[in-house]
């Protein structure tokens, strides 16, 4: 480990490559398995998605070319637009909630002090558990009869009779938000921590000497210098939330009354429950365009400031 950190700082040497001439072709053999996998499981399926979206493609039987009919159908598919609207709403709320918890935690663990590493480890533990495990766990905690929250509130005398958190939209939605924040906050915290640690200490000290209070320092130094880290944490949270599926499928099955169907959930239903593969592909293309647009925004936000590095 030490050798690597030591050598990364060495000035880059001129690209003098091992061997010469035809020996370089061997490189192709080294990268061939990776390229083959990406071809088979990414490039070809991607092309097929575009191709299938122009077809009526049932699971069994012949498929037929129907041009843009699937896309026209999407325009009238109010349930898809509702799913997309819900996904957007969820993304905004959950991202705000994650940052509201993760940012204070990142500040809390940023400086090396006694027990900080221990706290960091505890905060991070839910992040290594899978979304499916976390959802199964919380579906139990949220259960009205055998779970924790409702019976505990009842035993403490906070409510008169047991309340089913998953039966109506608002409590169900906020329960999911609580579960996702519990699961993801530690992850976002680590990303934000790397940003905080990269701020030069003398800058903060100079500001203190100039009489800047903690809020002024936060606004004038911390936030601007963390721009790229903030953008990264934001994009990871937004992209992850737009693709949300596990928690809504496992805890709520899209309910109550189909109000928590997300975009991926709707595509899953169309493709693998109704087996309308062509239509599912067209929906996927819409989702894909949204995500790629987001990635391009990401590249723009993460660009290195001019004149630096």
């Amino acid at each position, binding site marked *: 480990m030490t*050798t690597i950190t030591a050598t990364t700082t060495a000035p880059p040497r001129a690209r003098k490559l091992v061997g010469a001439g035809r020996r370089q072709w061997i490189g192709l053999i080294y990268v061939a398995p990776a390229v083959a996998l990406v071809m*088979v499981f990414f490039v070809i399926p991607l092309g097929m998605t575009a191709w299938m979206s122009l077809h009526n493609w049932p699971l069994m039987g012949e498929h037929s070319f129907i041009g843009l009919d699937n896309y026209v159908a999407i325009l009238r598919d109010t349930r898809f637009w509702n799913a997309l609207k819900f996904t957007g709403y969820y993304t905004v709320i959950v991202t705000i909630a994650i940052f509201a918890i993760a940012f204070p935690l990142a500040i809390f663990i940023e400086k090396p002090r006694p027990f900080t590493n221990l706290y960091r480890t505890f905060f991070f533990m839910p992040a290594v558990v899978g979304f499916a495990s976390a959802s199964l*766990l919380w579906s139990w905690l949220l259960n009205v009869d055998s779970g924790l929250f409702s019976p505990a509130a009842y035993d403490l005398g906070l409510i008169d009779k047991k309340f089913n958190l998953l039966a109506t939209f608002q409590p169900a939605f906020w329960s999911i938000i609580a579960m996702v924040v519990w699961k993801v906050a530690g992850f976002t915290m680590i990303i934000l921590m790397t940003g905080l640690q990269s701020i030069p200490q003398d800058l903060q000290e100079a500001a203190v000497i100039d009489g800047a209070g903690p809020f002024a320092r936060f606004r004038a130094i911390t936030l601007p210098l963390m721009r790229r880290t903030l953008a990264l944490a934001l994009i990871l949270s937004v992209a992850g939330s737009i693709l949300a599926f596990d928690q809504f499928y496992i805890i709520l099955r899209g309910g109550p009354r189909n109000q928590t169907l997300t975009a991926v959930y709707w*595509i899953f239903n169309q493709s693998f429950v109704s087996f309308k593969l062509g239509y599912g592909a067209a929906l996927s293309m819409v989702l894909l365009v949204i995500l790629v647009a987001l990635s391009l925004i990401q590249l723009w936000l993460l660009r290195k400031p001019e004149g630096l590095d």
Partner: protein
Amino acid sequence: MAQAISARGKLAARFARHSTGIIASVLFVAPIVWTALSAFKPAAEARLPPLPPWPTTGFSLENYATLNSFGDGLWASAQNSIYVSVMTVILSVIVSVLAGYGFSRFRFPFKDLFFVLILSTIMIPFQSILTPIFLVLTKLGLHNTLTGLVGVYVTLQLPFSIFMMRNAFDAVPREIEEAARMDGAGNATMLVKVMLPLVWPGVVTIALFAFLGAWNEFLAALVLMTDQSKFTLPVMMTALQSGRFGAIDWGAVQAGVTVMMVPCLILFLALQRFYIRGLMAGAVK
């Protein structure tokens, strides 16, 4: 006097700091511990709300035993999950080490194109290409096989792990290779005997991420594995929790969730610095 006040202030600050830390730690860890403890209750007690979380009517492994009686059983799904995760680790390490070495040390046609192609797959959500992946696997005769699932999982790991390995190889000084070549080392010997020990931390990092990714993945396994004997743990547990095997046995759910969480937590606690390293590498670049 002033000193006494500032000392008391420091003590108060430390007290506030540690109480915040302890309360927050408890909130994050409690659900995990709660489940693991409740799983040891006898079935009759596990149906009741978990207050208190530990077994009060005697310690029991009944829930684990029941879990093994649903469908093909817990052990069958656990074996599937272990197989898929271990194979994903082995294959993604081999493929990424080779590719990382190739991209770092050789010049060949389409090199930049291939590198950008592999990295750009991170922009495309695999959720949107699951249907064609399903059809491709059918064409290859890998439909409903764990091998097919491994192929998908390895591909999902490639952008991160190849990027990671290319950087690791870039950081190895070329003098080391030149010296080894003087001693007559061929390409393969060079990679395995000379280079691999130097990039070992990177290998551990990508292996850890591959394991966690494969062990926890849900949607692709749900869509691609239609035969119950091929279910991985998340798919099997969701089938159980949805009442597919009759009334929901919450004791079995607690036991199953514990089995799903424990390997991740052990690996994370043992290899924490590699995990954080991987996150940082992703965050800084």
